[in-house]
């Protein structure tokens, strides 16, 4: 399988969960992948290299203003450029309006929203150099339903989806051939969600998604198959928000 042959990707939050599955699948489709996380992702990266893929890991906190530039420049010099950015790192901190603390909210926004903004801003020059690119932001289907406890998480993801579209429309009108889209997963079995989410019984397909299923959607958006797809939201949620 070589749907991404010759392409270079950066994936944030790639040490585990959806990010690790995404990095793996991108490699399997022929891309060279820079994995980044605040946790140690060297093991995942080594496993990919052992399988004959092009992969590297570097520690990076997406919320740190100065973290992006050196990582992207290292990626470009190592692999020859950057075509794909997957903003996957994210955190969920349950709180309601009565319990939330402003510093906590700023923290969540820092990782889920400001981080992707910094990443998109920093990656655009690299993508322009390649004559185009694909930015994929992992939002959540929590953009479209409300729990009392999703006050920070849901609003950060809704803002991320909206910001994605502003970036997409800007890049489109500028003629950059850089596309930007958001993916909205429903419950997938990872450390963040656990394996027995109370939401499961409400999912029409009757099960949680697997990280591999989510990764297949990332491949589609990353590939040239999706050349006319930009500024849109792709839901991978077992039908949860449809009814």
């Amino acid at each position: 399988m070589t749907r991404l042959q010759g392409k270079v990707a950066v994936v944030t939050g790639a040490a585990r969960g959806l990010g690790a599955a995404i990095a793996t699948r991108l490699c399997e489709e022929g891309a060279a992948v820079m994995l980044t996380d605040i946790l140690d992702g060297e093991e995942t990266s080594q496993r990919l290299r052992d399988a004959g893929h092009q992969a590297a890991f570097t520690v990076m906190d997406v919320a740190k203003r100065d973290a992006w530039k050196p990582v992207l420049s290292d990626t470009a010099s190592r692999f020859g450029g950057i075509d794909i950015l997957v903003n996957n790192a994210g955190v969920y901190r349950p709180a309601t309006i009565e319990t939330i603390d402003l510093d906590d909210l700023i923290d969540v926004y820092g990782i889920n929203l400001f981080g992707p903004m910094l990443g998109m801003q920093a990656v655009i020059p690299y993508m322009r150099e390649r004559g185009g690119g694909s930015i994929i932001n992992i939002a959540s289907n929590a953009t479209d339903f409300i729990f009392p406890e999703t006050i920070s998480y849901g609003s950060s993801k809704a803002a991320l989806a909206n910001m994605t579209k502003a970036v997409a429309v800007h890049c489109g009108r500028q003629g950059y051939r850089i596309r930007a889209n958001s993916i909205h997963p429903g419950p997938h079995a990872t450390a963040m969600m656990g394996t027995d989410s109370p939401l499961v019984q409400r999912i029409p397909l009757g099960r949680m998604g697997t990280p591999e299923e989510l990764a297949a959607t990332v491949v589609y958006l990353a590939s040239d198959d999706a050349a006319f797809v930009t500024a849109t939201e792709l839901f991978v949620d077992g039908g949860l928000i449809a009814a």
Partner: protein
Amino acid sequence: MLRLENKVCFISGGASGLGEAMVHRFSEEGGQVYFGDIDAVRGEAVAKECGAIFLPLDVSDEEQWVAAIQRIEQDKGRLDVLVNNAGILGTGPLETIDIASWNRLFAINVTGVMLGCKHGGMLMQRNPGGATGSIINISSNAGILATASDCGYSATKGAVRLMTKSIAINFARRGMSIRCNSLHPGPTDTPIFKPWRTSEKVSTQLDDTLREMIPLGRLGQPREIANMALYLASDESSFSTGSEFVVDGGGTSALAGM
């Protein structure tokens, strides 16, 4: 491994435009492709080009659906992918709507989709090993944003959008793994616009207006829409059902021209 290997597929309106591109794309990816259309001449020609099988079908006629699905069941004993793609443009401004063309529009764009889901869905339920499959209903960006000059078209495409969700959730809640999603193309270069291209000048104006709607600054190509249909037809989208998939160069997210 090809992306639709061993999957039996049916596409309505496969003799032209988006449907034709899907017939080709699905065949390239190993699908065993059947397709229907009212245009038998174009249908046979497309079939010859790629080895797919053409079946005459007017989507508004239930008996013809029964016959087409029966043929597939006889040949293959199963159906894995159904694309309800056949559709026509609408009836123009409100004040000028003629009831016969209005009814014909709904018979093709709405009833035709329902009949496909009904008979295709019933064969999917009989698939050996249990109910499986993926149904893709072609709506439009006009099912999301208003088309001021054509309330009929917008109404049919909006109907497809919500009918799709209802069918998806119904199948899922009954424990069947038959997925159903809507695909919303933006302006794409196909013969559907032929009736509007009455002169070169009008045609250029139309293209300019369409391009203005699209941040990517160009019309879509049929193959780009077929690529999304392929993603939805394949197991790559196995956790998506009842959702909307937009391929429109950013058109529904931006104010036209800005």
